[in-house]
């Protein structure tokens, strides 16, 4: 076990095709034009000393350590800011350079603490650089003016500043800082927040957050880019200060959102010291956000349940039992239920949080072991319309691009997504492109950060009323067809021409014009027309969308409308364009790929397809049911009706994340054996009879598939604290049910997936270990995967245009419920918050708040911070209000990260017509002043408290 070390080339790679040859220290080097001399040297194995350069940021040339000499040129230019030129002869090491570097370093060291603990631990480059340039003594001594000592000549030192410990995850110690500006540049260039600056000038200059505020009160979003960039001990992770430097590391994949960032888990023994984003990670390219970088403390949180537990009734306290007892109990109960109530009375739910291999096993358990297709996944409640809509139009259920594609985009259209909060690392990559000049259209009821954030401003923000996406998208299509902006050549070559003509005739109907739909959307027609023109004519145009598109009664229709727009304008099949769903969870793409839906086997093959079933039947040795099984809402309905009795839920909190909480609770309460397999006693576990402790992503091997179809490796860095990784638990459960499973390692599960699934045919752990990651389809035709899909034609053959008629949702405002509620996510928290609530991320978001427009607040006598009751026809809850004009009058908004809020008590049972994806984004509500929690919240909390009692087993003698 050793550290995974990355080479820092000092400046970013040049993208030029023209090559330049030069000589550095006698070595002939050929590099792309525009490469810095520093980088060219490093590629040739020559390390030029440096402090202020880093290959994540543009060259800056401030530290003056990296000077070089070029034959025939005057002076000693900085190698970071000097580009290579044909035929030049560079010397990186001469007596003159050595003497200049020692002089510079001597000055730095005279203002750097002699006892810098970071230097001692190897977390500060200063001592290393001093050694590298051969500095052995310092003529200036420690008694001159400096930033290091609190006292100077017996007085307080005016230059000295105390450490800033306000951020929960990192410390800023100005005494160690050399003001090289790397942190300032990382914050601007990489993260795009611009929270840091250099204050003052000369010897007075200092790094400051915002207006010399504590970091926590500044604009800082705690992404960690500055800490990663800092070459000194000035910015350090608090965990490193507490635990010491890591001893070994492994490359793995973050388990938060669908961006799927690659990290190095840096370890001491079995303890994580820090997570550092990995530059070779093709999704994140060395960047991170506050969740992946810092919020991993939940993995060892005291709330984690480590022993299996059972109870006969959900009103009983939990009894800790051995793993064998738990498996035997489950096997007995599930067999009993199936005997008593029929084969279809049990089912399973796979998790978008678990690995592909684990998900595959759960659906296999249901199909092979339970003998039915009652398997579903949490993607039901988020991106099932994406799967349906894109399959109908293009032929595959996934996004068309990789994230790198955004670097070639000229027009970004964001609809129903909030990348800077929900997919922050991709948000930063998008903002970088926008700062380079790409244009931006935002379609969202709320003024998300992207609409206007330092150095980025949307050209058009179309603040439509929640629930009118389809009307808006069809109006955009209307303009494109009416104004002759269709890419006819593309459509004729690549798409079904008849379907196009039918669609064009449909969208041209006057009722789809922006002028006509204005009455639904509330967006001025001229704005819609201008946005449509920009999208169709602005160059490479890419659409990025999220749950604001899918979680509607017309979610699938909206996805198809998006697909239509991209086809009509020829924005498919090359870098920089495409249709890009921003997936919510780390492995939601993978869980869908792995056959988690009741009607699909892995690789999106319908269960009714005899040939596909035959593959699995011969391998698994069972006859598979050719009828689709129950979806989650159907399972709950059936449970209430008394025909569905047993459920295995892996890593999902359906009680908190599924709509109409009361109905979910009633369904679960009606079952006789609910098995919850999770890290924590989540809300669903309040209704469970068996609790199986889960393992974290740090405790297992496997793969996650991110929003760009990228299959990334997850690597085990510690033994599961609960004894078994999740795949082992499912396997042992299967064995208890009498199945002959015998996987020794998750790689064997992936081999089975590859053997049976054409789109995964080329995937193996060996391949992933060699190349890092691949994007499916990965098979004979594309041995290293497929970054951009539909390059030479659509997967389904000809792209298919589909009519997208706008049907207003049945959820309408009226006198009793005059406001529309829509929901979203915030940067520091993640979904139901089971993980982030158990970390210091709580510092930023202690509670969910209801955003309400000042006019609506005033009408109701609500002041900022007041408790308000939020009521819909489904139920009511209470939370505190935040008054803001980010939402339009008539619209209110909240996040759903805290179980106390129970926003889904309010949401209704309406769902997408095609996929049952719940309509979370539109609920008619009323808001009124309130004194505190509602009766439901109080009852629920009492029940939860009772339900979480545990009787600990006596330790064995």
């Amino acid at each position: 076990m050793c550290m995974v070390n990355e080479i820092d080339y000092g400046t970013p790679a040049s993208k030029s095709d023209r090559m330049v040859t030069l000589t550095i220290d006698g070595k002939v080097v050929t590099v792309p034009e525009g490469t810095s001399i520093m980088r060219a040297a490093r590629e040739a194995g020559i390390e030029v000393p440096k402090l202020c350069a880093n290959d994540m940021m543009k060259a800056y040339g401030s530290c003056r350590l990296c000077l070089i000499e070029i034959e025939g040129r005057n002076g000693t230019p900085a190698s970071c800011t000097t580009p290579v030129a044909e035929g030049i002869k560079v010397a990186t090491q001469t007596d003159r350079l050595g003497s200049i570097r020692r002089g510079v370093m001597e000055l730095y060291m005279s203002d750097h603490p002699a006892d810098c603990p970071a230097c001692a631990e190897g977390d500060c480059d200063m001592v290393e650089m001093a050694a590298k340039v051969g500095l052995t003594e310092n003529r200036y001594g420690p008694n001159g003016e400096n930033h290091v000592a609190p006292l100077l000549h017996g007085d307080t030192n005016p230059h000295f500043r105390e450490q800033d410990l306000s951020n929960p995850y990192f410390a800023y110690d100005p005494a160690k800082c050399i003001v090289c500006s790397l942190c300032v540049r990382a914050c601007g260039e990489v993260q795009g927040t611009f929270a840091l600056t250099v204050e003052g000038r000369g010897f007075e200059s200092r790094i400051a957050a915002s207006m010399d505020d504590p970091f926590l009160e500044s604009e800082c979003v705690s992404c960690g880019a500055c800490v990663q960039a800092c070459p000194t001990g000035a910015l350090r992770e608090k965990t490193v200060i507490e635990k010491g430097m890591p001893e070994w590391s492994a490359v793995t994949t973050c388990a938060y959102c669908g961006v799927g960032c690659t990290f190095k888990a840096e370890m001491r023994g079995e303890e994580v010291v820090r997570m550092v984003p990995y530059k070779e990670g093709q999704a994140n390219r060395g960047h991170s956000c506050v969740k992946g970088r810092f919020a991993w403390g939940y993995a060892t949180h005291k709330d984690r349940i480590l022993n299996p537990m059972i109870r006969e009734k959900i009103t009983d306290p939990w009894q800790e039992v051995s793993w064998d007892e738990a498996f035997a109990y489950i096997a007995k109960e599930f067999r009993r239920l199936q005997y008593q109530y029929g084969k279809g009375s049990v089912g399973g739910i796979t998790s978008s949080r678990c690995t592909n291999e684990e998900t595959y096993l759960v659906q296999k358990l249901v199909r092979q072991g339970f003998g039915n297709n009652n398997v579903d996944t949490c993607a039901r409640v988020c991106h099932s319309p994406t799967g349906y809509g894109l399959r109908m139009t293009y032929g595959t259920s996934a996004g068309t691009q990789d994230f790198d594609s955004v670097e070639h985009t000229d027009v970004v259209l964001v609809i129903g997504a909030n990348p800077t909060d929900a997919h922050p690392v991709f948000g930063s990559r998008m903002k970088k492109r926008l700062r380079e000049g790409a244009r931006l259209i935002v379609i969202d009821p709320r003024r998300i950060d992207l609409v206007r954030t330092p150095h980025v401003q949307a050209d058009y923000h179309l603040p439509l009323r929640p629930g009118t996406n389809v009307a808006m998208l069809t109006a955009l299509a209307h303009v494109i067809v009416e104004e002759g902006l269709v890419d006819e050549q593309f459509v004729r070559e690549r798409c079904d021409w008849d379907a196009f003509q039918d669609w064009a005739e449909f969208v041209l109907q006057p009722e789809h014009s922006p002028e006509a739909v204005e009455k639904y959307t509330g967006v001025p027609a001229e704005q819609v027309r201008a946005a449509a023109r920009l999208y169709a004519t602005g160059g490479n145009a890419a659409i990025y969308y999220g749950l604001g598109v899918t979680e509607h009664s017309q979610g699938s229709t909206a996805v198809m409308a998006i697909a239509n727009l991209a086809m009509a304008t020829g924005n498919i099949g090359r870098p920089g364009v495409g249709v890009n769903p921003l997936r919510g969870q780390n492995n939601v793409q993978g869980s869908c790929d792995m056959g988690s839906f009741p009607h699909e086997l892995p690789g999106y093959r319908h269960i009714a397809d005899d040939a596909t079933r035959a593959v699995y039947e011969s391998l698994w040795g069972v006859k598979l049911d050719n009828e689709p099984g129950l979806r989650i809402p159907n399972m709950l309905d059936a449970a209430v009706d008394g025909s569905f009795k047993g459920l295995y839920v892996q890593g999902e909190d359906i009680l908190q994340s599924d709509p109409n909480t009361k109905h979910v609770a009633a369904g679960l309460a009606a079952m006789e054996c609910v098995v919850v397999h999770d890290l924590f006693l989540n809300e669903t576990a309040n209704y469970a009879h068996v609790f199986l402790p889960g393992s974290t992503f740090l405790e297992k091997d496997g793969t996650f598939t991110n929003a760009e179809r990228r299959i990334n490796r997850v690597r085990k860095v510690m033994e599961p604290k609960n004894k078994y990784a999740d795949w082992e638990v499912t396997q042992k459960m299967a064995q208890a049910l009498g199945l002959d499973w015998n996987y020794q390692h998750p790689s064997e599960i992936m081999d089975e997936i590859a053997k049976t699934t054409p789109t995964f045919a080329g995937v193996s752990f060996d391949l992933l270990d060699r190349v890092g990651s691949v994007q499916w389809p990965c098979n004979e035709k594309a041995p290293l995967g497929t970054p951009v899909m539909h390059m030479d034609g659509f997967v389904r053959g000809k792209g298919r245009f589909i009519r997208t008629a706008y049907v207003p949702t049945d959820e309408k405002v009226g006198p009793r419920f005059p406001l529309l509620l829509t929901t979203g996510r915030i940067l520091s928290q993640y979904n139901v918050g089971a993980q982030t609530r158990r970390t210091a991320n709580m510092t930023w978001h202690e509670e969910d708040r209801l955003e309400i427009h000042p006019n609506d607040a005033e009408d109701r006598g609500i002041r900022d911070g007041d408790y308000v009751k939020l009521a819909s026809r489904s139920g009511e809850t209470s939370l505190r209000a935040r008054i803001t004009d980010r939402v339009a009058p008539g619209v209110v908004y909240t996040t759903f990260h805290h179980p106390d809020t129970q926003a889904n008590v309010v949401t209704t049972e309406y769902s997408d017509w095609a996929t049952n994806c719940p309509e979370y984004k539109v609920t008619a509500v009323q808001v009124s002043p309130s004194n505190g929690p509602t009766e439901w919240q109080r009852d629920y909390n009492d029940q939860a408290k009772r339900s979480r009692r545990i009787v600990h087993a006596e330790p064995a003698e």
Partner: protein
Amino acid sequence: MQPASTDLITSIMPIIDRWKQEEGPLLPILNGILREFGYVPREVIPTIADALNLSRADVYGVVSFYHDYRAEPTGRHVLKLCRAEACQSMGGDAVAERLQQLLGVRFGETSIDGSVTLEPVYCLGLCACAPSAMLDGEVIGRLDEAKAAEIAAEVRS
């Protein structure tokens, strides 16, 4: 920091609006505020940042870089005395000491009666007439004890 008062914002908005559409508007806006107030109240930074779609840090970095963008109001007069090498070599130290005595302030301070603010400056480009100073924008050369007294009398009057 206190948020800027409505009055303050009302008075800087015309300055921001005057320059907002120009290329590189930040320095002209800060100069405009300096002309209007004689200093740059730090509370206005968020307003400027918002108007120009910059971060607060962006604006603060620029404001704190230039000594002229003072955080506090000055006295009625501003005296800048050159403390750079040429003036020092021509007796600038003695003049500096004398002026501080006469005015009753140290460098960077404003006298209690509000008559004058004394600031160091590093080269006025007037080395040929060293030691030199600048009083309310007017340069004065060949400073000596007599001229120092004259200046003190003038700012006090």
